[in-house]
Each structure stands twice: as C-alpha cells, then as structure tokens.
C-alpha cells in the first residue's frame, strides 16, 4: 500500500534537491560565516545567494529586509514584541480570532501580563474576516495589526493588502503570519503595504528549524534575541547555514512550481472535495471556497468524531488532520471552527486534507475509495446517526 500524505499544512517533505544543496554545509563547508578564513567566507557567499533566492520568492527589494529566525513562531513573536517596544505610546494590538497560536497565545499573554489591549477581529461562518470590525478596532493607540495571510485549517485567504492599508490609515504597523501562504500564492512585497511578514521553511519543502521575518526597509526592529551581530544585530545567534541554504533552494523551487500549485494541485484538491461530497451525505466544506489556498480542503462530516476518522484513514495509509478536540489533547474543537460557529454536530468531525506538489491523482483516488467506508463505519457506531436522521438521544447529563 502506497502511503498518501495529505497533511502538508502541518509539514512538508523536504525536497531532495534541498537536501542535496544543504549536505556540503554540514561536513565540508561547515565554517562559521563570521570567521576570517576561507571556511567562513565560502559559507558567507552561499548565505548571500540563499538570501537572494528567498528575496525572489517574496519579491523584496533589499536583502537586509530578511531576518532569518528558527521558526514561524519566532518570527511572529519578534514582530509583535518589537512593534510594542518601538512605539511606546501605542499599546494596542488588532488581530483575529482565527490566528495561529503563535500569535494568539502571545496576544493573550500580553493582555494578561503586560496590560496590552488586544482586539480579536471575528470571522463569519465561512471564515471571512469582518473587515468593518477590524477597521473599528484600529485607532491611534494601535501598535500593530497582525492578520494571517491564509488560515492553516481552512485555507481561507484574507484581504491582506486592504488590511495593511487600513492599518496605515492609523499609523499602525501591519504584520502578517504568512506561514501557510508563502510558496503557495504569489507574493510581491516591494509593491506591498505590508511591514512585516513571517514564514517558516518546513511548510515549503525546506527543513524544520528555519524561518524568516521580512521587515520592510525603514521599519524599526528590536531583536528578540540579543548577542552577536548576525542579521545586522537584529537576530543574534550563529547563522543556521544549512537551513538558510535549504530555504533558499526551497524558495527557488516554490517559484518554479507556483503555476503547478495554482493549477494542478488546486485541481486535485477540487476533485477530492467534489468526490467526497458526492459520495458522502451530511458533509460540507468549511471556509471560504471562493478565496482560499489552492492546496487546502477542510470538510466536516456530521455525527462522527475526527480522531476515529484519522485512525481509520491512517490504517489505510492516508495521513491528514482534524480540528477535533480529541486529537490535540484539548477538549474542545479547534478555535478556528468555533470562531466560524461551525455547528457542534460537525465541528468534531472536521477533517483537513492539505496537498502539495508531491501529490498525485492516485492519492485522490485512494481517499475517494476509502473515505465513504470510514465515515459509514463510524456513523454506524454513533448514537446520533440513523440513516441521516437524528435519533432521540436523551443524555442524562449534557
């Protein structure tokens, strides 16, 4: 049985070309880029090239606009904390209810421990941001508005340019967590109002442990990590040379495959989605179907629970993920599905299929052949399911 990996929003396979580019920098060109000898200088040159490759993917004008970090989370934390530190008179943040925990948990902490006022912009039932509420939340005290480019669970894309514009109306910085968008949608930062943008290597076929923060020229940045002079003193710590070089090659490959991602991968996703909805009743797509990442499908199956679905799919060699409570160890369905007010009958059974350029038609065929049986098996077990009708389930506590 050929395994089917459809969890690319969680992480991607490192492209073998990326690995090959990285390998010499472990055992041969292992020098510290800061060193005054050949070992150092050859690494320095490779890092410069890698920075250029990432610049091309992001469409940035200046090489110093990229600050390498260790993760998307580090980039997000750096951006928000720096915005507060560099603008002492501004102590408010505007974000959304559906951000990644890297932003959300930090905001909650700042609220509780630093007295920062945080506005969480709501979304509608299709995951679309309430732009009016966002506009109203902005004000002269707003230090930074931070809205993700695309949601990791539903793939819904937010109107980032418009949101950045609105933030600038109030003199506030605009940051976007673009971890899910970079490599999947075209980005051209030199023509953009965005001040800061976070990305993570392992979401675009580079390894884990490398991320970056774009900081628009002229935007002040206070480092999160202090120490050496690396990254012009904006992020101390010896450069992760293999990671940076791997991210460079991954960025180049992402540009090459951008068209494929937008067309072939999107078609795979659409075929899976249509096929599942045709074969399985009481199921629906969550998120904004019109405006979303080409690779993501989030489908809620009513009256069953996600973990059971994942376990049965895993048995058939299919890997995907769920917004259900049980898989994460938390007791509630994901904050994204709750923010969208997906009914409880379905929120626990929401499954995310996320594709990459590695996926094929056979992958879709396999899921389409397996999934109806999986759903049926669990519905047979469910006290809420009776051929599509709700049964009279009367719990003694609820």
């Amino acid at each position, binding site marked *: 049985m050929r395994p089917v990996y459809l969890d690319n929003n969680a992480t991607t396979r490192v492209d073998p070309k990326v690995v090959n580019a990285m390998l010499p920098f472990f055992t041969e060109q292992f020098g510290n880029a800061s060193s005054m000898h050949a070992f150092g200088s050859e690494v320095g040159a490779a890092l410069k090239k890698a920075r250029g490759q990432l610049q091309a993917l992001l469409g940035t004008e200046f090489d110093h606009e990229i600050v390498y970090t260790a993760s998307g989370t580090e980039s997000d934390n750096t951006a928000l904390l720096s915005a507060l530190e560099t603008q002492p008179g501004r102590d408010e943040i505007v974000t959304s209810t559906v951000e990644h925990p890297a932003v959300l948990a930090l905001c909650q902490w700042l609220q509780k421990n630093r007295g920062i006022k945080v506005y969480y912009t709501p979304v509608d039932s299709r995951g679309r941001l309430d732009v009016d509420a966002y506009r109203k939340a902005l004000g002269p005290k707003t230090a930074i508005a931070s809205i993700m480019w695309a949601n990791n669970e539903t793939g819904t894309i937010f109107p980032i340019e418009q949101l950045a514009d609105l933030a600038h109306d109030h003199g506030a910085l605009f940051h976007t967590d673009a971890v899910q968008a970079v490599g999947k949608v075209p980005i051209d930062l030199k023509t953009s109002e965005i001040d800061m943008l976070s990305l993570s290597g392992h979401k675009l076929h580079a390894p884990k442990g490398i991320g970056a923060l774009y900081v628009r020229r002229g935007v002040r940045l206070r480092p999160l990590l202090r120490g050496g002079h690396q990254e012009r003193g904006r992020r101390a710590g010896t450069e992760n040379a293999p990671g940076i070089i791997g991210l460079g090659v991954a960025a180049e490959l992402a540009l090459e495959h951008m068209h494929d991602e937008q067309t072939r991968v999107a078609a795979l996703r659409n075929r899976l989605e249509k096929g599942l909805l045709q074969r399985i009743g009481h199921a629906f797509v969550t998120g904004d179907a019109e405006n979303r990442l080409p690779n993501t499908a989030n489908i809620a199956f009513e009256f069953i629970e996600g973990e059971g679905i994942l376990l049965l799919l895993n048995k058939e060699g299919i890997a995907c993920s769920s917004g259900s409570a049980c898989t994460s160890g938390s007791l509630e369905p994901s904050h994204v599905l709750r923010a969208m007010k997906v009914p409880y009958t379905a929120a*626990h059974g929401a499954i995310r299929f996320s594709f990459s350029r590695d996926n094929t038609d056979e992958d879709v065929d396999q899921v389409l052949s397996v999934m109806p049986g999986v759903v049926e098996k669990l519905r047979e077990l469910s006290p809420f399911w009776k051929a599509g009708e709700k049964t009279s*389930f009367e719990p003694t506590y609820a």
Partner: protein
Amino acid sequence: MWDYTDKVKEYFYNPKNAGVLEDANGVGDVGAISCGDALRLMLKVDPETDIILAAKFQTFGCGSAIASSSALTEIIIGKTIAHALELTNQDIADFLGGLPPEKMHCSVMGYEALRAAIANYKGDTWADDHEEGALLCKCFGVDEGMVERAIRVNKLTSMEQVTHFTKATGSCSTCVEDVEGVLTRVNAEMVAAGDLDSALAYNPARSAIPQRRDKVKSSPLGTAPKKELTLLQRIRIIESAIEDLRPYLKADGGDCELVDVDGDRVLVKLSGACVGCQAASVTIGGIQDRLIAKLGTPLRVIPVPGH
C-alpha cells in the same frame, strides 16, 4: 499521535458489541455531541437473576471512547447488576491495558453510562442521583457527584488529573474554583478516612510554591545493590568498577588488573607507572572505596606483586 495500547486499537478497529440492542431493558445515555463524546449503553438483564445477558453500545467520540465503550460491554456481560456496580472506570482502563492520562475521561464516561443504564433498568430516575451535587462544569455537563466519584475511585490529587478524568474545567475554565473546592474537600475527607497520604492531598495554596526535590543522599560512585550476590556477579561488578577507573590510571601511565577474589579480599595487580609509585596506596584506597560502594559490603583491596 496518541500512544494507544494494542488492546485499545483492537477494540477501536474491531469493536465488540457495537450497535443497537433491540430488546434492551436498561438504557443509559451520557455525554452530548457538543461535548465531543457521547455514549448509549443498552443492557438486557434477566429480571429473575439480575444477570446482564447482553450489552451493546453506540458511541460518538474518539478512538479511546469507542474502545472504552466496547471494553465495558465485554466486562459486564455475564455479571450480576450488583457485581457490575462494583466496577470502576479504572477496571475499563485496566482491561484495555491503560489509557493515556488525557483520555481517562473516556473510561469515566463508560462508568457513568453503566450507572445510568442500571438505574434505568431498576426504574430509578438517574436524575435523582444527580441532585446530590450541583452542575459544576457547564461546558461538558459535569456535576459534583461525578467529579467526586472520579476523585475517590482514582485517588486524584491534582486539577490536571480531574480534567483528564472528567473533562471538568477543560473549556471555559470558569468552574476552576468550584472544582478546586471539591478536590480539596474530597482529598481532605480521604486523608481523614486513611485512604490518602496527607502529603499527596491537593492543597491549592501549595500548588503555587515551587517544590523542592527530595534530596536522597547518593554517592557519585553509585548505589549498592541489595541482594546477596554470587561470586561470579561480584567478580563482574569488581571488574566493571576497575574498568571504569582504568582511564584515570592510564592517564597517569598506570594500570590495574584483578587477580583473585577470596572472600572479602580482592587481590589486584598494579602495573605500569603505578609500580613503585608513592601514591599507589592512595590508588588502592580509591579502588577499595569504589568497590565497597558498588558491592555494598566491606572488603579489602590488596595489591599483589606482578610477574
């Protein structure tokens, strides 16, 4: 990925007694779809003997919820009502070879469904039972009685455990103080009844203070084994102790090898730079201390001349 036991997987992939029991005379429903798990337990009880002749279940929930439900039916079939009521959620977890701590509430749900189904069979209204305690956790519909039972049966002593076993406080957290109160009270009662060591009992004041580690006085040379050792075991330990020391001896150009073990006398031969070294007696003393620590019995290390 949860670390489920093979038995949990087996009972999830091929659940026994799943489905509707048409002629059930005791039905217990617990949980709700909004809570993320729910279980209907159906029993067929012989009215003459009170023996559970058949049991089936329907469950909405994760893998361990389905496995726990199925396990429960397997455990109770053939038992009398009285016998079944003696079971606890721990019996379900044990039957499955254990559940991850975060999933213990699945076994509690099975236990609660059993009580509900038996009450239904007897014609009691299960709700009466629930009037004993107030509804604590509104998000998951957990009342005081359920929390208290879970604490007593499983000897829970932390808030985290209470959440893992009952889900209470797992969502909006507004009931944390109430649940904390129940945990404090029940633990205190358990201590008074001699069911719980007072040092383990939950103390909300203490939970904020960093706890010191128990400082067990341990020798860096290792601790002594307790059991009586055979001669071969003693020799192996002595040899490995000497092996550990050898790099230090070699660093000074010396070496040491075991010649014989005779009761509490360990005969060794020093070689290389150790021979004639003024510090040789210190080295011998060091070896002796190390062997005593390893073996846990007094002994003497005696150098014997080489060749």
